[in-house]
């Protein structure tokens, strides 16, 4: 074959373009910055997760510490239990509540940071 006389025009063969070109994919960050509908959904999901967590922790506070006045009123028998000469309700109010508060706070901080990490992973993915 004589290649030098008729150099063959080379053509790149690719698959046929049957679909519309994809719009450039935006990250969640870009969507939020544009304040698009998608961005709104990203933000709403973060807010809902954090608010649900807050409500759960506050409900736990109300169900434990918040119920104590009613418990003391409803069960006067608790007063007969003495610890170091002091009635049980006194001891609970003076010393017992603080560990519960710190524990609730610890659970909240961990869960809130997890929610934020999940949000960051979601919006940084493209």
């Amino acid at each position, binding site marked *: 074959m004589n290649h030098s006389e008729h150099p063959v025009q080379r053509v790149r063969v690719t698959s046929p373009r049957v679909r519309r070109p994809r719009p450039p994919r935006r990250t969640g960050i870009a969507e939020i910055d544009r304040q698009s509908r998608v961005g709104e959904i990203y933000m709403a999901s973060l807010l809902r997760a*954090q608010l649900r967590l807050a409500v759960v922790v*506050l409900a736990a*506070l109300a169900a434990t510490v918040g119920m104590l*006045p009613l418990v003391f009123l409803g069960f006067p028998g608790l007063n007969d239990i003495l610890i170091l000469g002091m009635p049980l309700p006194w001891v609970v*109010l003076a010393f017992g509540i*603080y560990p519960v508060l710190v524990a609730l706070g610890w659970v909240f901080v961990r869960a809130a940071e997890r929610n*934020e990490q999940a949000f960051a992973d979601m919006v940084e993915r493209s």
Partner: protein
Amino acid sequence: MSTGLSISAVVVVVLATLAIGTWGLRFSRTTSDFFVASRTVRPRLNASAIGGEYLSAASFLGVAGLVLAYGAEMLWYPVGWTAGYLVLLVLVAAPLRRSGAYTLPDFAETRLESRAVRLVSSLLVVAIGWLYLMPQFQGAGLALRTVTGSPPWVGGLLVAAVVVINVFTGGMRSVTFVQAFQYWLKLTALLVPAFFLLLIWIGDGATPPTAAETGVSGALGSAWGLPMTSDQPYVLYTTYSLIMATFLGTMGLPHVVVRFYTNPDGRAARRTTLVVLALLGCFYVLPPVYAALGRLYAPDLITSGHSDMVVLELPARMISGYGGELLSALTTAGAFAAFLSTSSGLSIAVAGVLSQEFTGRRLAGVTAFRIAALVGVAVPLVLALLTSGVSVARAVGLAFAVAASTFCPLLVLGIWWRRLTDVGALAGLAVGGVLSGVAVVDTLSGAERTGWTDALLAQPAAWTVPAAFVTMIGVSLLTQRRRPVGVGRFLVRLHTPEAVPLDRG
């Protein structure tokens, strides 16, 4: 009671406070340093500082005094003051830091894009700050009188003078060191004497404090140890109203909020708050010990109306000689640390707002701040000299009720509810502020009331807080066309972690 050691203790605390304040001066260079320590304070140092600032005369003296005089029901005060931090952590800590504002009025203005809301918030910050400073100065006067026999105004003036000097020289940065130092001083000042007092008590045969019959009105003998059994009616209402004021009021205290802006980011703000919770819990188990022992060893304080002084008097009464004097001097030092730290924090918060709103218009940044500090301290000092007779912890309780009825709804709705409008916020602040303000003025004026009127006015939070929330929500829903345009961007700033590179407006 020997005075020499206790006076030296007061002098040492004052000098140490001034020395640490001056040492901090080397770091303070810009207006930003003065306001928020240029936002570089680490969580653990910051948590100690918050604890030091928060544990006021009401915590150090007032709680033990109230529990001594009125019994177990009063234990809800320290519980509420700690739980208030949990509510603050859960609802506002990180968003408040991320809002990027210096003060509560800054937050209000940025969120609602309204100068009017800013102005009303400023007035409320000053009002709450003064209401809270007043009992600090009163407590200082009482404490110094107990120690030296000086007239009541001397102690208040001393504390006011030290605060002004400290603010003049260092602003917030040096105050951060002072406050952190004072938390540990206060903890030591209650912990060490309590240890010795308990040893004495056990040596005396460990008589149960509930056995003490003291023959005073109010909770007697065994009933003293029991909550919910006092013969006072409406006790369930009063307890829940107190819970509402303290749980929700903490987030609205101006000196608490300004501390959050010193955290580097929202995550650090949360961690700081958690450490604060633990520090407060460690501290608040101690005052009840003094109250219970005071029932046995100092019951005459109840009859003489000086129960607020039980923490100062108890060591010298239970331990004779040099040891008792030394321990009393230690608790006196702690008490003055409490007066100084809380007053400094409040003065800075009030001065910050005053200088931004009023003096800052004419004067350069730092000068305006100093003038404002002078005014911010002088007014409550005069008020403290004019009014008296309300117990320290109760007066502070009223400040909490006002904060819970005004800034709590503003912060919670501002952070979590995008439909809040400026008109709604103004209406809510007005309703909450006026209703709780009326109750405060009535209580401070010492008017004698009975029955439900007395209960509703002495502990107003249970009805003023819901009224403020309902007004704020209702009026906002009616004025949806005034919803601020930048609210979407602002919520992005409040709730997204700083590491994500978003446009935060």
